[in-house]
């Protein structure tokens, strides 16, 4: 098999070389981190007051973990390590409690991230002759713009179409002779069902590859995508706390994702004890970013469950491979590629006076896409006997949810005490999607 390399020297560097780079960059990162109020405190706990205190990679484990809550509490500038004049990009995610998280990038940070992405895309065989249709959402989400930059760096012709409007997506694939897609797996399956409606046949398209990401999916889903579309589909992994897409990516062998160890230090821990698991065991992925100055990130707990392969990949890359994400250690749901915490829904429905205290969140597959239903109980004293009042209430809840969580849910109104209440911690999420 032809194995293309964007940077063969780094991608095939031996372990001691990689570790030398990691140590050097970790020390540099600790130096940047010490400029932020948040990490000054964290590092003081670990008795680290200077990069010189980091003598070996093992010293990383002295540093306390960073969590999503830390990012929220320190919003908006607690992790900013450079002067605003050196910031060229801000990405943000909506938070579960109304407090968002933010990541700043310097010019060099964007270049580093883009270079990692170029490495990812090139390793699948994508090259400058390709036409790249970026079907991920742009905006504050890193998936759209991040990949856009990486694809341009490779020299592909980038179509920044963004998400949605399926018929237009299909016509665009045909008109511009798109060869490579970046898309969530569920949306890619859905698009296939709309070909006929768009009056476009698969033979009219010259698609070769798809980069699928932003939501966990099984090997079976990949096989289905590859079969119905007759393309190669490559899994990808990333999160904005660690720049965005491109932390790990599959090469032409498609046997799980090389995690770029010159850019990130990966640890797999037992989520209960925080201790490292044995080599090859599964646990929570913890990542340290070695290539971002404006918002340093040390030992970030991703809440994603996965494992690292211990055997080498036939492609010759030395960077270890991360398995598919097998689950989460928190209650976060991923619905059509969008992250959703049940608390985000709770926050919206609980501020509507006509809604009583109980609610249920139900997720199921409708065709290939995820569908979200929010069931609420109405508050009897505010019932005026009028169906149009209830329709209006339903419309209001739907609209408020839509603006808070981006997704468009179906809202169901129920009588008080009609929804099941479980003892103790209420079980409010019913996920009916088939388990992989």
């Amino acid at each position, binding site marked *: 098999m032809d194995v293309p390399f964007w940077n063969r020297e780094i991608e095939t560097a031996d372990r001691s070389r990689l570790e030398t780079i990691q140590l050097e960059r970790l020390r540099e990162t600790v130096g940047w981190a010490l400029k932020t109020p948040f990490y000054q405190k964290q590092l003081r706990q670990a008795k680290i007051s200077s990069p010189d205190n980091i003598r070996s990679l093992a010293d990383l484990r002295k540093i306390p973990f960073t969590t999503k809550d830390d990012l929220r509490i320190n919003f908006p500038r607690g992790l900013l390590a450079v002067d605003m004049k050196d910031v060229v990009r801000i990405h943000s995610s909506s938070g579960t409690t109304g407090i968002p998280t933010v990541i700043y990038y310097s010019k060099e940070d964007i270049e580093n991230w883009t270079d990692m992405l170029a490495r990812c895309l090139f390793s699948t065989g994508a090259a400058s002759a390709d036409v790249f249709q970026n079907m991920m959402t742009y905006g504050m989400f890193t998936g759209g713009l991040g990949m856009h930059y990486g694809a341009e760096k490779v020299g592909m012709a980038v179509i920044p179409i963004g998400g949605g409007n399926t018929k237009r997506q299909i016509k665009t694939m045909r008109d511009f002779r798109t060869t490579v897609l970046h898309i969530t797996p569920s949306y890619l399956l859905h698009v296939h069902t709309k070909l006929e409606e768009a009056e476009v046949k698969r033979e009219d398209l010259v698609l070769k590859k798809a980069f699928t990401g932003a939501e966990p999916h099984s090997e079976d889903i990949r096989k289905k995508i590859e079969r119905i579309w007759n393309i190669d589909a490559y899994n990808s992994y990333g999160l904005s706390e660690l720049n965005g897409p491109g932390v790990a990516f599959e090469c032409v062998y498609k046997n799980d994702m090389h995690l770029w160890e010159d850019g990130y230090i990966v640890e797999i821990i037992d989520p209960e004890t925080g201790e490292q698991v044995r080599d090859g065991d599964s646990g929570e992925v913890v990542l340290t970013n070695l290539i971002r100055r404006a918002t340093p990130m040390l030992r970030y707990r991703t809440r994603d469950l996965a494992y690292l392969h211990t055997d080498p990949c036939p492609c010759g890359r030395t960077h270890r491979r991360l398995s598919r994400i097998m689950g989460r250690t928190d209650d976060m749901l991923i619905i059509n590629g969008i992250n959703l915490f049940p608390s985000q829904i709770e926050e919206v429905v609980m501020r509507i006076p006509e809604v009583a205290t109980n609610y249920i969140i139900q997720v199921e597959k409708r065709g290939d896409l995820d569908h979200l239903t929010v069931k609420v109980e109405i508050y009897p004293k505010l019932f005026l006997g009028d*169906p149009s009042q*209830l329709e209006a209430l339903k419309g209001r809840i739907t609209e408020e949810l839509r603006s808070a969580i981006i997704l468009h849910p179906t809202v*169901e*109104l129920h*009588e*008080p005490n*009609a929804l099941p209440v479980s003892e103790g911690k209420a079980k409010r999420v019913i996920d009916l999607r088939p388990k992989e």
Partner: protein
Amino acid sequence: MKLTQISVFLENRKGRLYEVCSLLGKTGINIRALTIAETESFGVLRIVVDKSDLAIKTLKANNFVANLTDVVAIEVGDKPGGLAEILKVFADSDINVEYMYGFVEKFSDNALLVFRFEDTDKAAKILADKGVKVVTRREIEGL
């Protein structure tokens, strides 16, 4: 002059309407008129019963979401054009009908219809002025 209508919220669940009717039946309450306003995901049952105070108390005690609304029941000639005749009175007097439905039974040669008006008091006054026969609470209870 005015009658009490009971509205009951019904979530979209098999047997829910049966449960309301069966509860009223067991309590000895007779339904005089009914209609269901439905949407794709829920319904609102509207009823006029012989013992409305008892009915609302019973429904609430059994955790139904229920509410009272003023309506007017009118006798309409049971013949072609009978309804049109009465609607003309409303149209001429600028009275808005929100909704209407028929009785289950009748106690004269006339048909009985329940009307919900935008402005019940105004409608009641016009009806009295025009000498339209309306059904009293006493009549409903003894029907």
